[in-house]
């Protein structure tokens, strides 16, 4: 059990690679970079495989028990240094461990993250061979692997959040890899900022859980949620799960926070494949699936998840119908498929959602890597209008991409068929009533998916070349390092689906069985909640109802119809073609082509980059208005009060100076002074003159009395 006991080593392999690149990467040869960075991921993959197989043995001995190992306590101690008051007034110790949890759910993620990650690392050695910043790219990729593995192996929300932020950072760094290109740096900013909005929700959800449950460890929270203390529909749990779902919306690009993902295609193509298709964007799905015990206690949240998922699926798929950039089509496809996954989670079909994540990781990574190979062959051209006729020139890329297309379109036998059909079936059967509308949305989305994927493949590979001669001359099949991963992923895109062969097709739904320990209790809760429907669904699962076959046939028909329509519309594209939607309804085409003007609306409403005349609207407008209000009205009032005080002071001081001091105090004094002048004249100070006056006076008196 060495490997299982040391699963904490798995994230450290790529961390080591990232550290080496950080400190020494600049001086290393490309071969050394390859050896270190690809090597550590291969090691992580092999380690994961062995650990997983050992876990299977462990699970056999301890059925239903996740494997948990705590390396050390990272935040908080047992001595109560970080105590806080819970909602019920009792005190709880805040504690976050560097602890790792391996159960079927994280096991599946562990395998496909390291597996797909390894293939994409190998692919990148070919794709990035002629790019600058080679070591930087691989350092970031390794850092991403480290963060992603931390995220999925964490045994508590806090450590998960560390990984969550880490992948956000790496996403930012890798989208902005060509940082000298302005569009790339703004796309990186956009991704980072939009993700922060989601992260705020995640954080608040986390705090709510800590406040309500007193612990952030998944096992503790699940245990409490299962304990029956909490009623179904508990408002606090509903709030917490909705907040968590906001986080998931940001990371997994759901409405209304999906806007960053299409722009994220500014990054190198392997990054789009690894981060923005296969692994990071499924972190939101993982988080919701991980919190399933909470979500089932909050039916309102479940409904929200399902509705948001379904709307995102059809919304993004409809945009994908008319985009011309090959990577952008795939980006919208990713958003749409993520919507499917949330739809599955929202209707309570956790296993189906996870199954779709699993199959999607392979075929979407393959599609992106294939598009990378196409772009590589086309000397950097990404516009499908300038492609065409590549099928014979790059046959391996063509065949693998065709397989992935069939898989995502839902052609029977390929991986996407099983997982998507499972989701549609669950959407139809789990709740009934208005929820059938969700099935309808999913069904239409499937039709759209088949169409836009068919359009992509036909425009790229069929018909005759439409590119310039220079470019045509340079077209070549990619090197082995790129094609081998394509072939392996193509293989997985076919066979990954067979793991979850449903009962109705004679399989045993092994995938769902395997995940049962994670989700089983939740089904129990659902069963208690709506016993009749669940019983009906259970029965249908065992005795496959004819409706399931009918729905299956419908979606297969939709897949073929979509591909067929695409073929019909574009197979003569060398002679000029018209978009069928543009021909049928030009306003709709404009709306879709401009992505429903969501970016523009956000520019008006949130970023303030667009104004109506001189007036900014929305949040920034509110900010500007508030700022104006603050600087004019509030500050004006304050300044006015100041002015008034000053004026009063000036008046008062004038009054004091001139009326009180002047008129009343100094006035009489001046009057006295004035009156004293004649009297002062009499007293001029010379004694002899006084004496003279006295003598004259005396003589006068004497004379008067003498002569009278």
């Amino acid at each position, binding site marked *: 059990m060495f490997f299982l006991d040391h699963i904490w080593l798995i994230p450290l392999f790529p961390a080591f690679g990232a550290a080496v690149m950080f400190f020494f990467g600049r001086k290393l040869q490309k071969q050394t970079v390859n050896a270190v960075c690809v090597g550590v991921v291969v090691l992580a993959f092999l380690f994961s495989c062995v650990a997983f197989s050992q876990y299977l043995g462990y699970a056999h001995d301890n059925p239903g028990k996740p494997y948990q190992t705590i390396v050390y306590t990272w935040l908080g101690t047992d001595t109560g240094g970080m105590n806080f008051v819970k909602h019920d007034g009792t005190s709880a110790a805040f504690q976050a461990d560097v602890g790792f949890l391996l159960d079927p759910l994280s096991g599946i993620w562990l395998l496909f993250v390291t597996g797909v990650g390894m293939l994409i690392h190998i692919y990148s050695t070919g794709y990035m061979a002629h790019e600058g910043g080679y070591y930087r790219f691989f350092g970031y990729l390794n850092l991403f692997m480290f963060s992603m593995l931390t995220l999925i192996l964490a045994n508590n929300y806090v450590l998960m959040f560390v990984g969550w932020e880490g992948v956000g950072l790496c996403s930012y760094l890798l989208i902005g890899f060509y940082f000298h290109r302005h569009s790339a740096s703004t796309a990186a900013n956009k991704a980072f900022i939009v993700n922060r909005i989601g992260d705020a929700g995640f954080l608040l959800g986390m705090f709510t859980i800590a406040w309500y449950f007193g612990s952030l460890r998944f096992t503790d929270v699940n245990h409490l949620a299962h304990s029956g203390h909490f009623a179904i529909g508990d408002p606090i749990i509903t709030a917490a799960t909705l907040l968590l779902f906001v986080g998931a919306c940001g990371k997994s690009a759901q409405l209304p926070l999906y806007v960053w993902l299409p722009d994220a295609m500014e990054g190198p193509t392997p990054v789009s494949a690894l981060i923005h298709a296969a692994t990071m964007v499924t972190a939101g799905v993982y988080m919701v699936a991980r919190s399933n015990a909470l979500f089932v206690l909050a039916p309102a949240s479940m409904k929200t998840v399902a509705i948001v998922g379904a709307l995102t699926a059809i919304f993004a798929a409809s945009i994908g119908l008319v985009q011309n950039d090959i990577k952008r089509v795939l980006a919208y496809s990713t958003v749409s498929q993520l919507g499917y996954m949330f739809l599955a989670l929202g209707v309570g079909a956790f296993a189906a959602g996870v199954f779709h994540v699993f199959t999607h990781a392979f075929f979407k990574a393959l599609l992106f890597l294939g598009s990378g190979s196409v772009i590589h062959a086309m000397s950097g051209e990404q516009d499908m209008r300038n492609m065409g006729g590549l099928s014979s020139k790059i046959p391996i890329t063509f065949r693998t991409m065709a397989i992935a297309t069939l898989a995502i379109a839902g052609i029977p036998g390929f991986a996407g068929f099983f997982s998507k059909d499972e989701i549609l079936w669950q959407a139809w059967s789990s709740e009934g009533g208005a929820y059938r509308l969700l099935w309808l949305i999913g069904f239409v989305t499937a039709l759209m998916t088949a169409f836009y994927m068919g359009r992509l493949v036909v425009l790229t590979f069929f018909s005759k070349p439409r590119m310039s001669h220079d470019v045509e001359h340079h077209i070549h099949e990619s090197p082995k390092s790129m094609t081998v991963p394509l072939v392996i992923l193509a293989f997985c895109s076919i066979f990954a689906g067979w793991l979850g062969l449903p009962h109705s097709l004679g399989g045993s739904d092994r995938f769902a069985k395997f995940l049962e320990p994670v989700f089983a209790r939740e089904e129990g809760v659902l069963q208690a909640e709506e016993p009749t429907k669940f019983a009906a669904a259970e029965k249908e699962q065992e005795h496959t109802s004819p409706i399931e076959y009918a729905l299956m046939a419908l979606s297969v028909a939709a897949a073929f119809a979509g591909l067929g329509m695409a073929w019909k519309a574009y197979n003569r594209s060398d002679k000029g073609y018209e978009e069928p939607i543009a021909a049928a309804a030009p306003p709709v085409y404009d709306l879709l082509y401009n992505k429903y003007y969501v970016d523009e609306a956000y520019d008006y409403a949130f970023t303030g980059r667009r104004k109506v005349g001189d007036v900014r609207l929305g949040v920034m407008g509110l900010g500007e208005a508030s700022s104006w209000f603050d600087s004019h009205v509030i500050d004006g009032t304050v300044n006015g009060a100041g002015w008034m005080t000053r004026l009063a002071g000036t008046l008062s001081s004038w009054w004091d100076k001139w009326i009180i001091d002047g008129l009343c105090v100094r006035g009489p004094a001046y009057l006295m002074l004035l009156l004293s002048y004649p009297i002062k004249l009499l*007293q*001029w*100070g*010379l*004694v*002899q003159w006084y*004496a*003279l006056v006295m*003598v004259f006076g005396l003589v006068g008196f004497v004379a008067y009395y003498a002569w009278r």
Partner: protein
Amino acid sequence: MAPITTLHYLVVAAALFILGVIGVLTRRNVVIVLMSIELILNAVNLNLVAFSRMWGLHGQVFAIFVITDAAAEAAVGLGILIAFFRNKETVNMDEVDLLKW
């Protein structure tokens, strides 16, 4: 030779008194002014002594008081003068006008 009568004394005393008054009023030097005051006092003394020939000794007694007073007055006056001189380095009457404040 006609005998010396009281009238003679009174004339001499009056002459002395007028000399004294003129001295007090006209001289600039404070010392001389003080001396002129002595002249006035002595003219008074002469009058007193002359009248005591006619009406008894009271006049002489009073003259002695006046002499005493004159001595005291001279002492005080000269003292003030010295103090004044130390302040203003002058004994000119025209510059002694501090009493107007």
